[in-house]
């Protein structure tokens, strides 16, 4: 185990992958000598050279499409898009091309590519640099969607994503890049499609991903002092969803709060809750709860941005409320 930041963990994963397989290459804007917007590709150019660490013009359509084309013929690109907010300019190549080649070729073609994108608010960057758009990607069959919350997960999941023969959308919360954590040495993969229990608990289940996992753990700490024992499930992968883990986690406590940073309406929390109510309704002691950002573009002024980020502050209360509601319901049922 080594302590390193999330960004460093991602760097190491790319290094390992590029070392092991000459077909793996990195491509994106300012990733070469500049090392990427967040330093995630720092030093890769020196090690692997221009032929495998490619700086590009500002041409998202061409860069994304070129990554797809290269993948089609057996190369394995790791494309960096500095802000998920810019995905609109790459979008056709992602959802119509990359996502559909396997299907439309009847399984004869595959697109083994990873698209790394930074998401999330909290740095006052404003409307076009702060969004969390994971829900869009989960809606497209053919795309896998991964959102690690820790440095260790980041490394293991990125290695798996590069291994995967499908297009993987790999979303990194900007706030997490500097977060330090224990990271396994070597080239251990963490499987895509498997959630992880971040904290064992008995009373309430909080389901979260990416930065919200940290919010959940902080809330759990606070609530432990009030004898509310939270069970925190980190999805890690949104698509394909580890539905079994979700249902188990909910059945364990009968109370669930889903927390994410993205806007409430159409957010991925809705999908999680739909599945929970469809499949383990009887185990629920109270209606499920979603805590998410309000449906607004992300404002840049700090106090206004804090309003957007209110899910962090509201989570603990939501849990308390849920406990209260479920007790009431239990009493009523008696």
């Amino acid at each position, binding site marked *: 185990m080594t302590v390193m930041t999330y960004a460093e963990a991602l760097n190491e994963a790319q290094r390992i992958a590029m070392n092991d397989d*000459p*077909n793996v*290459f990195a491509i994106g804007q300012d990733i070469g000598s500049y090392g990427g917007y967040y330093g995630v590709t720092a030093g890769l150019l020196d090690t692997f050279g221009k*032929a*495998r660490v*490619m700086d*590009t*013009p500002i*041409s*998202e*359509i*061409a*860069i*994304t*499409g*070129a*990554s*797809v*084309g*290269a*993948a*089609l*013929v*057996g*190369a394995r690109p790791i494309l960096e898009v500095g802000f998920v907010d810019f995905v609109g300019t790459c979008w*056709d*190549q992602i959802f*119509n*091309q990359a996502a*559909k*080649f*396997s*299907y*439309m*070729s*009847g*399984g*004869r*073609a*595959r*697109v*083994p590519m990873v698209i790394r994108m930074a998401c999330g608010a909290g740095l006052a960057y404003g409307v076009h640099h702060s969004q969390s758009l994971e829900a869009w990607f989960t809606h497209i*069959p*053919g795309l*896998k969607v991964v959102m690690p919350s820790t440095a260790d997960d980041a490394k293991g999941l990125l290695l798996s994503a590069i*291994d*995967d*023969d*499908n297009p993987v959308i790999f979303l990194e919360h900007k706030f997490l890049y500097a977060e330090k954590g224990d990271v396994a040495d070597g080239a251990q993969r963490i499987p895509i499609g498997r959630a992880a229990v971040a904290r064992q608990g008995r009373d309430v289940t909080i389901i979260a991903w990416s930065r919200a996992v940290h919010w959940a753990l902080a809330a759990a700490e606070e609530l432990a002092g009030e004898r509310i024992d939270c069970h925190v499930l980190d999805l890690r992968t949104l698509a394909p969803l580890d539905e079994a883990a979700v249902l188990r986690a909910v059945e364990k406590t009968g109370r669930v709060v889903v927390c994410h940073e993205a806007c409430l309406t159409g957010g991925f929390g809705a999908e999680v809750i739909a599945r929970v109510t469809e499949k383990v309704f009887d185990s629920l002691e109270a209606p499920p709860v979603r805590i998410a950002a309000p449906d607004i573009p992300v404002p840049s002024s700090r106090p206004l941005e804090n309003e957007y980020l209110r899910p962090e502050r509201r989570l603990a209360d939501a849990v308390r409320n849920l406990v209260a509601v479920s007790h009431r319901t239990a009493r009523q049922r008696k």
Partner: protein
Amino acid sequence: MEMLAKMHLLRAFDQKVGERCKRGEIPGLIHLGIGEEAVAVGVCRAIRPEDKITSTHRAHGHFLAKGGSPKALMAELYGKQAGCCRGKGGAMHLVDLKIGFLGANGVVGAGLPLAVGAALGARIKGENWVVACFFGDGANNEGSFHESLNLAAIWNLPVVFLCENNQYGISQSISTQQKVANVADRAAAYGMPSQITDGNDVLAVFETVAKAADRARQGKGPTLVECKTYRVSEHYEGDQGAYRDPDEVAAWLQNDPIQRLEALLLERAVLSPVELERLPRDAEAMVNDAVAFAASAPYPAPDKAERHVFAAGKRAAS
């Protein structure tokens, strides 16, 4: 001679498809390439089997010219399990990696970045493929055209950008879509060489593309080749749009690429009158076989719809 036979195959195929569409046997949006056979055939003959091509929504000719099986294609159009994409792709989404056919595409201009990517992939993998990228005049005003040509030029990639200028983007004549008269005029913006050629003269297409492919193979970078041709078919089967001047259509019919090659070969006594008769009949027979095959082949079972959304497993042998 091979090229003539191939052109006949393309012609017969698309004519048959048109006929079957009208009968309701072939579903979906079908875009025929009648009149444009010389482009597909000339280009594919000028590159090697291991070279790749990307295609457009008007893809049958490209597919067959690259060596695709008429049976597999017809079955795919019919939506059958035996189709080249197991019935899942259909006319606009054909893929056949075995023949280096990297995809027809439903999105105009989407093939250009893919072609650039395939060339990039060749470099990563140390292969010396050339990629021929088909696109139409309509696509040259897409942002993807600009970005792809720029990227291929700046990275010196082995791509031949092949504009099949059939004068129309659906109903819009090229003169209403851009100010410059030729698509080839765009190349200078990227410091890229360009060539304009008569797209209905299969030998001219062949020679021009062979040179461009050679350049690419020698590491000298991409070329933009513009083939002037004409779309005798309507944009898609069932298109009622009467937006073209009948005189214009008639004039181009006089310029038929098959007739021109036949005339040339007859003149040079390379083609005999017997063969002249035989070739279209052979093509017709091949196409009829394909139809018979496709019509009688089974549909995929409904549960197949959920397969192949994802590629199975990891790191398939590449």
